[in-house]
């Protein structure tokens, strides 16, 4: 039952990532083409452009959502692959625990960065 729920979340987060990372990739990797065509703002990784995006509520919220969804999806995927190697129960528990701790820690760090940069607005 627990594994079915985790699997369902794996699919739900995949759908969330598809939308949000699609948007992120569009901004980051179609930016140069749009810029060359005279559409859109400056280069996507220039500091002004990065901070302009990071200080908009929409981007701050979507960054945190994407961070959570991608961490769950990626770490659950890694855990599933490792579990297929017929490991002992102890090793499975250890891997599951490590993935959960790493996921929470990275989410807190990434979330802190997103909020802190958003709050730099106007400073």
């Amino acid at each position, binding site marked *: 039952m627990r594994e079915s729920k985790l699997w369902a979340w794996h699919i739900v987060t995949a759908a969330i990532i598809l939308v949000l990372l699609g948007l992120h990739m569009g901004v980051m990797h179609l930016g140069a083409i749009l810029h*060359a065509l005279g559409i859109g703002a400056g280069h996507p990784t220039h500091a002004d452009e990065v901070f302009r995006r990071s200080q908009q509520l929409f981007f701050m919220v979507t960054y945190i959502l994407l961070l959570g969804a991608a961490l769950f999806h990626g770490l659950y995927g890694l855990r599933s692959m490792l579990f297929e190697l017929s490991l002992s129960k102890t090793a499975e528990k250890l891997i599951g625990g490590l993935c959960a701790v790493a996921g929470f820690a990275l989410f807190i760090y990434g979330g802190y960065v997103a909020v802190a940069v958003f709050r730099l607005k106007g400073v």
Partner: protein
Amino acid sequence: MQNKLKNNLGLLGWLSGGRYGAERYAYALHRLSGLGILAYFLMHIFVTGSRVNGKAQWDQTMGFFSSPLFKIGEFMVYLAFAYHAINGIRLIMVELGYMVGRPGLPSFPYSYSTLRQRPLFVVVMVLAAVLMIIGGADFYHMMR
């Protein structure tokens, strides 16, 4: 107690398609691309975290990653993303029972779910290739 079969192939079981056809290689590539994206994503969290220290720190970080080697690496991640995302849509559709047809008694000429979803597989691969070409054009513009 879960009823689990022992994986005697280990890591080779992930990569070898054996006699299972194109979808099995798509599965192996999906996992490989997933692992590559995860490795990049974990680094990406820390790299983009440098912006918390202001624009000067961000410019310094971006300067470090501006060499052609890193750009090629970034393009490889983009290719992995394009494949993983589009193939992932196919996997979700198949998981939810779309494009695989209804189960039925085997009758000649035999039709099975893998074969019935093959057109979807082809469309997905073409879409992934188109995304890769568009992304490649963007990287070419950025490198110039």
